[in-house]
């Protein structure tokens, strides 16, 4: 084991860790705002990557029809709720725009020569398809039971995760996919080959983390989200809509998940069911942060990536065991320290 190997392993570990960190932050944010343990976070990674791969392979982007189904169901739910409240069947302007969106998008995807488009455009289209899933998911599955216990919300998450994996198999097929790299430009620093795609991932993560920080510190919406995370009832009394914050949190989660997927798709082959393990490692990071602290969660997730890379080198047969055993001492230490986790029932 020489310096060169250490550096390559570190690069690999930090690259994966950067993705885990993003997912950890997103899981943490969704949990603190809505009390939902968002297990399907990993599905956004996979759906994003596979949608992008489908575009590049010139295959029809069928996932847009799933979006259409989600949209129609969500809008119908809203209409029904209004009908129950004031006895009138009416579609609002916002509702009709939402309803139209996936169909316009489908038409656009049908007309554009997807495989020939430049990669940033493909990435933007992928985001345009995937991000609306976030708020619709919240509307359909979590909003009606927003006041339920954490356990119930988690069970719904597990069910949703299972359903999405099954739908993923149906939509994308069992074959794994890999996309072409955004930049393929080998950098040589001293004796090591720096992978340009890996650098891009780290850069994306850092930018997203900074953006999240700015959002929460500087904008009114971000402050509203933080207020809800801090004290749900108090925030509500101040006129912050729980529905709006829930949808916002899920949109950000969808955005982060999809971006992570687009970023790692050129580095590794992703399958319809790869998402769970990736988000589970992000989850370990979030647990290390006690589901409370953002910086510790991010650091923990990067640590998970590094430990993974080095244990793959030393004892590849026990890699997963080492990574997931890590959670035990952390939980022990947390329980000894007796850090109260917010639970307002």
């Amino acid at each position: 084991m020489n310096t060169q190997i250490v550096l390559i392993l570190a690069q690999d570990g930090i690259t994966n860790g950067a993705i885990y960190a993003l997912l950890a932050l997103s899981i943490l944010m969704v949990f603190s705002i809505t009390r939902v343990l968002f297990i399907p976070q990993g599905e956004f990674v996979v759906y994003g990557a596979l949608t992008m791969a489908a575009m590049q392979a010139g295959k029809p982007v069928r996932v847009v029809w799933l979006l259409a189904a989600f949209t129609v169901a969500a809008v119908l739910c809203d209409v029904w709720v209004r009908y129950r409240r004031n006895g009138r069947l009416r579609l609002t302007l916002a509702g009709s725009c939402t309803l139209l969106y996936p169909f316009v998008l489908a038409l656009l995807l049908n007309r554009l020569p997807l495989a020939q488009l430049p990669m940033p455009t493909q990435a933007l289209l992928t985001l345009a398809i995937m991000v609306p899933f976030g708020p619709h998911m919240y509307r359909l599955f979590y909003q009606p039971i927003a006041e339920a216990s954490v356990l119930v919300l988690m069970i719904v998450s597990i069910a949703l995760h299972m359903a999405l994996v099954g739908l993923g198999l149906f939509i994308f097929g069992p074959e794994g996919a890999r996309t072409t790299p955004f930049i393929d430009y080998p950098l040589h620093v001293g004796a090591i080959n720096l992978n340009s795609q890996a650098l891009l991932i780290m850069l994306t993560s850092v930018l997203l983390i900074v953006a999240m920080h700015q959002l929460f510190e500087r904008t009114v919406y971000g402050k509203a989200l933080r207020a809800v995370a801090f004290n749900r009832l108090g925030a509500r009394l101040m006129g912050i809509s729980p529905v709006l914050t829930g949808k916002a949190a899920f949109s950000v989660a969808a955005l982060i998940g999809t971006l992570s997927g687009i970023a790692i798709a050129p580095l590794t082959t992703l399958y319809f069911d790869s998402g769970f393990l990736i988000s589970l490692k992000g989850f370990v990071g979030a647990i290390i942060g006690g589901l409370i602290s953002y910086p510790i969660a991010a650091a923990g997730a990067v640590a998970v990536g590094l430990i993974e890379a080095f244990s793959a080198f030393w004892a590849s047969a026990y890699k997963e065991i080492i990574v997931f055993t890590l959670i035990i001492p952390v939980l022990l230490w947390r329980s000894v320290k007796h850090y109260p986790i917010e639970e307002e029932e």
Partner: protein
Amino acid sequence: MLWKNNLTAFMLLVGSAAFTLPAFAQLKIGVITSSSGPSALVGIPQKNTVALLPKKIGDLSVDYISLDDASDPTASVTDFKKLIEEDKVDAVIGPSGSPNAMGVIQFAAESGTPMLAPVGTAAVVLPMNEQRKWVFKTTQNDDLIARALVEYMVKTNVKTVGFIGLNDPFGENWLRVFSALAKEHGIQITDSERYQRADSSVTGQALKLLGANPDAILIAAPGGASVLPETTLYDLGYKGKFYQTHGAALPDFIKLGGKKVEGTILAASLMLVLPEMPDSNPSKKVANDYVDAYQKLYGVKPATFGANVYDADLLLRHAVPIAEKAGKPGTPAFRSALRNALEGTHDLVGTQGVYNMTAADHSGFDDRGRVLITVKDGNWTRVK
């Protein structure tokens, strides 16, 4: 009115008779595939193949009962028990996965039901014992493929080999079989590493392998997972030869690996290089027929995994008429005779090769069951 009622009753009678009569001489075959879950890549072509199988063997009509185990070994056991206890099947084709098949062997033996497993690992039929004698395997045994690879290594002067395999029965058995053969031929294994199918990076393992700088690297993993170690090693600048097992023998391998898998050597059935095979090869026609039929129905070429199920059916087709002399389908006597008939299979040409079963060998392939294949200009080609 009365007349009308009579007519209805009569039609009902005729109808029910028409439905019950053929069931009299009916053979039931259960099929368990992993057509969803992580092994879906393997299971889907297998499930699709069931629709191609003819519905008659001699005078017997055949009822195929196809179940999905979602790649979950526990579900395989549930499916298997259901097939035996509720549907009372005479034979089972499946399950798709190695761990899934290992889990149901004892139930096949307990109930005395022949099972034809289209799985990769030889562990389902080796070492042969009282339980495994009910299991037949329609894929090449690992050692048959490994021998072809090792012979080629010796021929091309490979002295040291690094091994990386999946952390499951497939990878485990390959390491065992390959280590023994390598020792026999004076090839040194420098290092053996493991990885998971879902791993997004194998850089750590690759670096360890690179450390010893072996002449060649053998990767043992079924399906698309076989690509990642190879591309990683390529990116890290490994210049030696890559060897793959028959687990990598699918079109996706080239699609996922691109130019990085150019020059990979593997041994597999003739399915990948059908047009290149000489007409004298007995399996060429059978395999061609299968590929054509599959393509006609689904519009795509089948992966080799589907052909393994097709061969299982060919074996049954051959054995059922012999077993019928011993008893009616649905009886233990018939199932036992079916097992004996399968074991007596002699020179049966399948899509994968020629089957010659014996009491000790329930896979039954010889050298006609494999060809050396390489990737050249993005296509599978025979090694001349």
